[in-house]
């Protein structure tokens, strides 16, 4: 168990900087998820903490010790890889015991720890099998077990669920969450899946192009996204974001409709963000956004209407009740929930507080 401190961590390859200074403190026992689209540098950041990539600038501290110059084996960490990286020539038991044997733990202690992890992960029947005789989900659990038996200062997971099918992914997600609650292990988890990020994390780092766009709790990220990128990345379906021109408490929408908006921060061009779930049918006579639907997706409980703001080619997604009778070609007027308006700078995309 330990605290991890990232202090202005940077990475460059041959003079080309790919991670532009990330500073963060991960508290003892905290579950932090690094989330972002592929190529945003999230895996690289994790690998720098693990010691598999050199740190170009800044420092990484684990348990009060700067580890920049330490080999992975000296950092007291364990890691779960995306492809699990199980040793194919060793049985499940040997895979889990590998690190403990190197640490020269007494035999009885090794057996006890492996047995405990096997019970927790329901792997007892497979202990003597080779990895190739296991299913994807079982392999994933072995990889988890191998990391957990070491009882490391920090647990690092690099997209551990992305090779599993959808159903298994949900199961494993719950299991990982439960395991974290039980062990209280400081955990750093990389994923591109926003659902994993939202459900697992105590705090999120949303990364884009090597920059931490926002570091906050999942709810904060959802309610007050720090930038247009974060707003568009977190939430499903994605937030509707379009340019409006604001003056005197009113915003002119694409297509020409004018909407009085409380809390407009300033005049001029702004980016307005409205989540699909925060748009409701407008009362008669109320100022509203006119939308022409192009298709309606019915998911049972909910339906999502995909359309354009009337008179423009700006797409807009609405959440509708599952029983909604609306169909392609219908025109609806919707009003935004005044408590859930997001404004972003038209130039740099940063959030503007209303």
């Amino acid at each position, binding site marked *: 168990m330990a605290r991890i401190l990232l202090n202005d961590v940077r990475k460059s390859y041959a003079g080309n900087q790919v991670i532009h200074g990330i500073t963060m403190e991960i508290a003892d026992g905290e579950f932090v998820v690094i989330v972002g689209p592929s190529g945003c540098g999230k895996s690289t950041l994790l690998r720098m903490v693990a*010691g*598999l990539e050199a740190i170009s600038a800044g420092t990484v501290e684990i348990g009060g010790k700067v580890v920049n110059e330490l*080999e992975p084996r000296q950092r007291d960490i364990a890691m779960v890889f995306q492809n699990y*990286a199980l*040793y194919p*020539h060793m049985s499940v038991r040997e895979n889990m015991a*590998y*690190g403990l044997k190197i640490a020269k733990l007494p035999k009885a202690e090794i057996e006890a720890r492996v047995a405990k992890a096997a019970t927790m992960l329901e792997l007892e029947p497979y202990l003597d099998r080779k990895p190739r005789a296991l299913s994807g989900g079982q392999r994933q659990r072995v990889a988890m077990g*191998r990391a957990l038996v070491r009882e490391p200062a920090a647990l690092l997971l690099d997209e551990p669920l992305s090779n599993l099918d959808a159903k298994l992914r949900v199961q494993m997600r719950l299991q990982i969450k439960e395991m974290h609650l039980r062990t209280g292990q400081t955990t750093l988890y990389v994923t591109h899946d926003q659902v994993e990020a939202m459900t697992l994390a105590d705090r999120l780092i949303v990364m884009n192009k090597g920059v931490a766009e926002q570091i906050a709790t999942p709810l904060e990220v959802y309610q007050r996204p720090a930038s247009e990128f974060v707003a568009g990345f977190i939430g499903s379906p994605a937030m509707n974001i379009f340019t409006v021109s604001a003056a005197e408490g009113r915003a002119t929408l694409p297509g020409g409709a004018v909407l009085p908006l409380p809390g407009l921060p300033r005049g001029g061009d702004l980016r307005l963000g409205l989540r699909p779930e925060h748009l409701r049918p407008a009362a008669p006579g109320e100022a509203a956004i006119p939308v022409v639907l192009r298709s309606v997706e019915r998911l049972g409980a909910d339906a999502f209407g995909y359309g354009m703001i009337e008179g423009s080619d700006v797409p807009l997604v609405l959440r509708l009740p599952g029983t909604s009778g609306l169909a392609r070609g219908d025109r609806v007027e919707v009003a935004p929930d005044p408590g859930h308006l997001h404004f972003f700078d038209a130039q740099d995309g940063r959030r503007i507080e209303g």
Partner: protein
Amino acid sequence: MRRTVFPHKLLPWLLLAPQLAITLIFFYWPAAQAFRQSVLREDAFGLKTTFVGLANFRKVLGDPNYLNSVRVTVVFSVLVAFCAMAIALFLAVQAEKIVRGKGFYRTLMIWPYAVAPAIAGMLWLFMFNPSFGTLAWPLRQMGIYWNPLLDGEQAMALVVAAATWKQISYNFLFFVAGLQAIPRSLLEAAAIDGASRRHAFWTITFPLLAPTTFFLLVVNTVYALFDTFGIIHAVTGGGPGKATETLVYKVYNDGFVNLIMGDSAAQSVILMIIVIALTAFQFRFIERRVHYG
């Protein structure tokens, strides 16, 4: 696996014909000839041939020179196979670590394979010739009385070195390919699990290379037993005394130099049996420990 079905019966045989012809002419026919001759005895002038049953075999197996040759072969083969594989593995591991100019080093490493055995033998002969060898002089300066023309053990060392040198390239190539097939993440996982580089090599890399190593063991054994004839012929001619006369070399010596055809044929039959038995043994007992990924 997908089965390809040809429209008629003739085409497959036609496609196989060249390989079959080569195998028949250069393997089965000579092998059959050897079997036939091993039970015959010819007189000194080649005028009369008599059937003698297994007499040739009894004579060969009772000959102390033959037993010496077996000993020489075991020493020679084990040394060549082991050294050629160990050095090649070491070099392959080192070459993998190089970041820049990898291709250049690899190409350099592969060159010796293109040198004909007799030429390679001559090269080593010249380098270590006791009177004018480039490398014989420094050896003498170091206080070693170097004379492979008289000292059997030195002669053995010389042919082992030449045969090994020739085979390293081949092994190197396979080991490099084998190393590249090992996923990087396994070694990263081992590093995080606390393994030092050396420990990770012996517990992860080496076991995962086993299919390559096993294949090379079979190939190198056969190489050391048969293909080294040219090198031995060029470097020592089996001498001094009979210190470097391997089984293959003795077959040649007895058959084509001393013209004792029956003995020589019996020896080659025995040799054939040894190689078949050895290969069968390797597949039966060593391959079991091989993990195919």
